[in-house]
């Protein structure tokens, strides 16, 4: 498929078909393992046509060398963490900052009440934001789990201290199916709205390091 070979040590992109009938270049790119607001160690190898992912394949980098057991954290703190990461990707720096402050406050345990207040304030803001609902809604819909927005609102409930059950973990194959055909920004939001952890992959491959 190469029409030309390498230039400056790097291959040129080759053409491929697309859903809108144009046969233009397909660019092979990797998202992750190191990307702001991205689950560390996750690699998404994608074919990009313009800014749309025409195919996606996900894997964990070095999944078997990680400690299988994550440090146990309060679900509220974990939810605030995830929320902050999602808000980073959604480009909402002030809300992400507040979520992080609330998380830090809770981790310190000195000023719990204030941290709780801050957490409630930021989750209320995110929950009620019509702009966020408009810009992040309607993508990444997945069965009973709802779409990106539903998952984020669930995290908001968890982060404000309500007892909400965690959604079952998503397999990387499902994630790939969700992001295929999505615009790159939507794909980032979808990945950021799922709680992806290498733990499952590690335990699945049965490499447990003490």
């Amino acid at each position, binding site marked *: 498929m190469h029409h*030309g070979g390498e230039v400056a040590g790097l291959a040129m992109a080759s053409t491929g078909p697309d859903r809108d009938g144009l046969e233009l270049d397909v660019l092979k790119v990797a998202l992750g393992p190191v990307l702001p607001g991205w689950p560390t160690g996750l690699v998404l190898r994608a074919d990009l046509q313009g800014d*749309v992912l025409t195919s996606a394949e996900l894997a964990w980098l070095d999944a078997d060398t990680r400690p299988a057991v994550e440090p146990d954290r309060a679900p509220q703190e974990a939810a605030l963490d995830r929320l902050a990461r999602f808000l980073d990707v959604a480009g909402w720096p002030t809300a992400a900052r507040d979520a992080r402050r609330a998380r830090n406050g809770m981790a310190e345990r000195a000023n719990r009440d204030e941290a709780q207040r801050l957490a409630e304030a930021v989750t209320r803001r995110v929950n009620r934001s019509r702009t966020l609902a408009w810009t992040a809604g309607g993508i990444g819909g997945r069965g009973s789990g709802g779409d990106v927005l539903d998952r984020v609102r669930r995290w908001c409930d968890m982060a404000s201290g309500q007892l909400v059950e965690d959604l079952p973990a998503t397999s990387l194959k499902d994630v790939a199916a969700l992001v295929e*055909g*999505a615009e790159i920004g*939507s794909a980032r939001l979808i990945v950021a709205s799922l709680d992806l952890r290498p733990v499952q992959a590690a335990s699945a491959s049965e490499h447990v390091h003490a």
Partner: protein
Amino acid sequence: MTELSGWAFTAVAVLGVLSVAAGIAVFVVDSMARATFALLASFLAVAGVLLALDLVYLAVVTALMMTIEMAVMAVFMIMFMMNPAGLMPMTMVHNAKGSAVIGAATFVVLAVGIWTIDWPTRNPPRPDDSTRQLGEAIMGSHMLVMLVIGISLFATILAGTVLATARGRYDRFGPDLDADRPDDPVPGGFRR
């Protein structure tokens, strides 16, 4: 010509040379991006000529339109041309001999025309506000031009869309156009 001050005359000459040079650059460079923006440089030099001739509105609107148009042209050049960045050596010209003949012939015709036509001289004094004069012309004596252009722009929008898009309303709303929400690969700003 005599109306031009020495300053404006120099500016027109320099910018004219610049615009021709940038025009030539379009065919010399390898990369589609460079070719497009060489053309933009040429247009901006023409805008500069208009500015030197004290036609501010026309100058600025030329720069405005041409910049946007060249940005759009860059999109299409890079979409459809092989090797758009010119990373692999290539030539920008095809049928060099034929086009050279056509180009030279056109140049001769235009140059002869320019020097032989008895151009009208400007009798009334320079207007203070060339923009206002243009507005009066468009809204007054040249109204028909605007109406014709309006209709042709409308036709352009329709024809362009029909030709450019692979999917249409029947793909989106179903054969009877009765679907509640359109079926699109990527959702848009409206929730329906």
